[in-house]
């Protein structure tokens, strides 16, 4: 099941040129671009691992693509997302975030139902991949 998180996730995966164009837009707006990766794509898992520092200094997409490729070399089998942080006073938040790399196989989520008191149903989702310990997920 294809994970749909962040912007553009219902579109086909962006090519590097398209990513560069988005980065260009972010930089033109003065946002700092950063890369993050994870092996647990649960929608509530907001804390992904950072790949280096946010690139406050870079003013060209080439630098971001370079880092993205470095990140892919190390964690190409996991999810990688690109976020653009707006540090303007009053905003101070991520303005754009989208997935730029995903595993070949995405097993998706399991929906668990729990019958609770009365006829109440409780639901929870669990990533199939997290059934394995860290470091062994998404290995093909």
């Amino acid at each position: 099941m294809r994970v749909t998180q962040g912007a553009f996730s219902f579109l086909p995966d962006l090519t590097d040129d398209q990513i560069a164009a988005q980065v260009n837009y972010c930089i033109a707006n003065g946002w700092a671009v950063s890369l993050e990766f994870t092996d647990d794509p649960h929608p509530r898992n907001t804390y992904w691992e950072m790949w280096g520092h946010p690139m406050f200094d870079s003013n060209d997409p080439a630098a971001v693509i370079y880092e993205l490729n470095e990140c892919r070399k190390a964690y190409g089998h996991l999810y990688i997302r690109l976020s653009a942080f707006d540090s303007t006073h009053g905003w101070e938040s991520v303005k754009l975030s989208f997935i730029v790399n995903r595993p070949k196989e995405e097993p998706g989520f399991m929906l668990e139902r729990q019958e609770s008191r009365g006829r109440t149903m409780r639901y929870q989702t669990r990533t199939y991949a997290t059934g394995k310990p860290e470091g062994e997920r998404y290995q093909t």
Partner: protein
Amino acid sequence: MAEPEPQDQPIEDSAEQTAPSETEIDLREAYDASGVGELLRELDEELIGLGPVKKRIRETAALLLVEQARKRLGLAHDTPTLHMSFTGNPGTGKTTVAMKMADLLHRLGYIRTSQLVTVTRDDLVGQYIGHTAPKTKEILKKAMGGVLFIDEAYYLYRPENERDYGQEAIEILLQVMENQRDDLVVILAGYTERMDRFFESNPGFRSRIAHHIDFPDYSNDELLAIAEKMLKQQNYQLSETGRTALADYVGRRRLQPHFANARSIRNALDRARLRQANRLFDSAKGPLGAEELSTLEASDIRASRVFDIATREEDEEPA
């Protein structure tokens, strides 16, 4: 999607290559559209002398325009290597030209921004093991899309210390210069002799740099013209005798050690302004007009140490 202008949207380049839609290119028109003519004219007016340098810049511009035209016609083209080395004595305008070069390459659509990141050894080389690579990469990332100007590049290589981390920075630089030619133009600058020695011990650099531009020293007349231009920018002028004194000064200063071409002249003018201010303070009795406030007299320049030395030698000679 409409055919994008290559200089505005370099990201679309790859899409453009596959769909050549034009069959003829008017080079003159491309030249006008890129705004290069204007820049070259600016270069001619603002920079005095430097004939060979200007010639090389014009040639580079022509090459890039032709490459651009070939690309638009769908002819085979290889992105030319534009890494450069600027060699010349101190104060011959290397940094100034580098800035112009960044602007030129940007207008020709070869680089995406006209930014020039100026660095020296300190910015690239770290202080302990493992510090250099991230530091160099950080700078490279900062400079991507524009021009990286490495001043006094020979300091990167210190043969006397075999554990020097400079070598590591050089290796990373070479790798990026080779693999990411589209993203970054590297300009190395330094004094001629030391750069030559640097290239001899780093053959990798020499072969990756296609353009070696040598900056000649300025002649006395050129230096005088530069001085007048500097003064004009600061709203100063020379009196008739002041001009003769300055011409005299230039000739004498050249023979002194540590002569740094235009930089020496700029310093001399700064000192002359200082003396002029003092002279005005000491001698002025009534209110001063703009004319007096902005005129440098011969005495302001003749008070320089350079004249003392010269006259002392003349005195000594007959003895």
